[in-house]
């Protein structure tokens, strides 16, 4: 089977993000970039599918030249081929999905996996947009997946519980935490990753439909207040929670 995975490069979760001087972008200096954690679940699932059913795996990413690092990470984990759609400018979800669809329409993948969202802009859009553009079904927030023959059975996370759905290949799957435990790339994979070629192409669509006007950081949390350290503080604490914080 042909398995495609869409991945992206995002700032590390523990990075303290600073806003750039233009007020509408993130200052990349001092930021370490990683593969989007949800995409890592997608890569792992692709590898598991391949190990079970045979086939070939392919990753694609749209990003700057530095995004080759996430392709190499995927190679190191065991993915066979990779493509970078190289864009030095930031594209919105629609443009990203258009570019991915443009490549994927010629590939005829049986299954396309992606993360449910990328943790930088949190738009939750690319997977569903992509499916729509390709005319495929999409299943989002997937925490369990089995593929038998042409049948796809997926477990989804829904508010307060789980839902099991069925569909047929080809399909777009958006991975949620819990789908699997991504493997560490082993050192052999890492050593081999550097010699595997990465294909590159230019984006076919560069027109954003959404413009970022400004970005701001959340207000710093006000300092906590210690009312007291023993039982005698409780009445005052209750009063403050009721009258000042208005939470009880």
């Amino acid at each position, binding site marked *: 089977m042909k398995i495609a995975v869409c991945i992206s490069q995002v700032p*590390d979760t*523990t990075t303290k993000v600073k806003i750039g001087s233009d007020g509408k972008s993130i200052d990349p200096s001092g930021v*370490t970039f990683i593969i989007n954690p949800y995409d890592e679940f997608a890569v792992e699932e692709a590898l598991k599918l391949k190990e079970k059913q045979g086939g070939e795996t392919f990753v694609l990413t749209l990003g700057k030249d530095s995004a080759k*690092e996430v392709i*190499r*990470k995927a190679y*190191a984990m065991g993915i066979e081929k990779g493509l970078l759609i190289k864009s030095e400018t930031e594209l919105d979800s629609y443009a990203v999905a258009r570019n991915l669809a443009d490549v994927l329409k010629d590939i005829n993948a049986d299954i396309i996996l992606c993360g449910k969202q990328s943790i930088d802009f949190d738009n939750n859009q690319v997977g569903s947009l992509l499916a729509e553009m390709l005319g495929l079904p999409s299943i989002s927030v997937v925490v369990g997946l089995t593929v038998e023959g042409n049948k796809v059975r997926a477990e989804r996370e829904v508010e307060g519980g789980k839902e099991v759905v069925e569909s047929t290949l080809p399909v777009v799957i958006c991975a949620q935490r819990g789908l699997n435990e991504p493997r*560490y*790339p*082993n*050192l*052999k994979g*890492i*050593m081999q*990753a*550097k010699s595997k070629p990465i294909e590159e192409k230019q984006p076919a669509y560069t027109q954003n439909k959404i413009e970022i006007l400004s970005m701001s950081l959340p207000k710093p949390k006000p300092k906590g207040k210690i009312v007291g350290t023993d039982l005698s503080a409780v009445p005052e604490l209750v009063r403050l929670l009721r009258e000042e914080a208005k939470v009880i």
Partner: protein
Amino acid sequence: MSANFKGVDYFNIDALLSEEEKMIRETTRDFVNKEVIPIIEHHNQAMTFPKELIPQMAELGFFGPTLPAEYGGLGMNNVAYGLMMAELERGDSGLRSFASVQSGLVMYPIYTYGSEEQKKRWLPAMAKGEKIGCFGLTEPDYGSNPGGMITTAKKSDGGYILNGAKMWITNSPISDVAVVWAKLDGVVNGFLVERDFKGFSTPEMKGKLSLRASITGEIILQDVFVPEENRLPNVTGLKGPLSCLNQARYGIAWGVLGAAMECYVTALEYSLSRIQFDRPIAAFQITQEKLVWMLNEITKGQLMCYKLGRMKDEGTLKHTHVSMAKRNNCEFALTVCRMAREILGANGILDEYPVMRHANNLESVKTYEGTHEMHTLIIGEDITGIPAFRADEKSN
């Protein structure tokens, strides 16, 4: 403690590393965060080695990675190897010791001095973690002066008869093969002694207060017959074992950086959250002086190791360079761990924090593979031409 440890890199040494080197470090770091840190204190107290990690360590490629692929290695460079060792030792010196012994003290001599049959038989299996090795040099009466060893090999029909005792041997109780150094007609030779050879036993040494998550034992050889094909054919003399130690010391010089970084990060975090006299203790000048000293020494140690690794890859490394880095880094890393213990106050002695374990471990690390003093005198001899550690002060 720091399960989301991000490294200590005050001088942006990362900029000197290749993508591949960094990725190898990241994989090792993830492994240590997820698999080692949660269980290691238990093993430390129970005085057991986490054997359950061996298959995964092998699968990830931690054993003999610098050897070529035909013998199960990965052809990895020495900087990547060093970064890997630092992460392993950030978990625990016992884990790094296990990897050091397997790779530097057993696979290395088999690869360098072994016959083709020995290499084919042992190296791929050791890379896969299916066979465990140990290295027997030290004897009860000969530590810093291994040349005086009294373990002997006598020629016999089709092989050799070995007699003697080795002590302080990492992994000996769990090993499938021991590289034993013994004197044959007064000249040091290396022998591969296998677990099921008659007269070979490896009692475990108990009562260690350091490197408790590593198994240490004796090797007892009582008329052990070792066939001819198990002698390392391509080396004789003390330079055999000493060249192995040089490999393993290289790994130690890097490794202890990991223990030091873990303790520094723990102390820094703690000092920012612990309030005394209404201020975080990090606000006091004495605490800051300690933190700065730690970071400063770690940075110097990192630069030293980085250069050491590049020289090793270029082939310009001298054994005295390794002595200097081993000596310097063990010494400061131990002081860093102790300072971290001070900053944590009473909490510093608890098993909830890693500092006391690291500090105790480094007492061994400072001594094994050549004591601090011996490395001082090795460098001393190199720069003065006078060997101070021998009675006959003649250089050779």
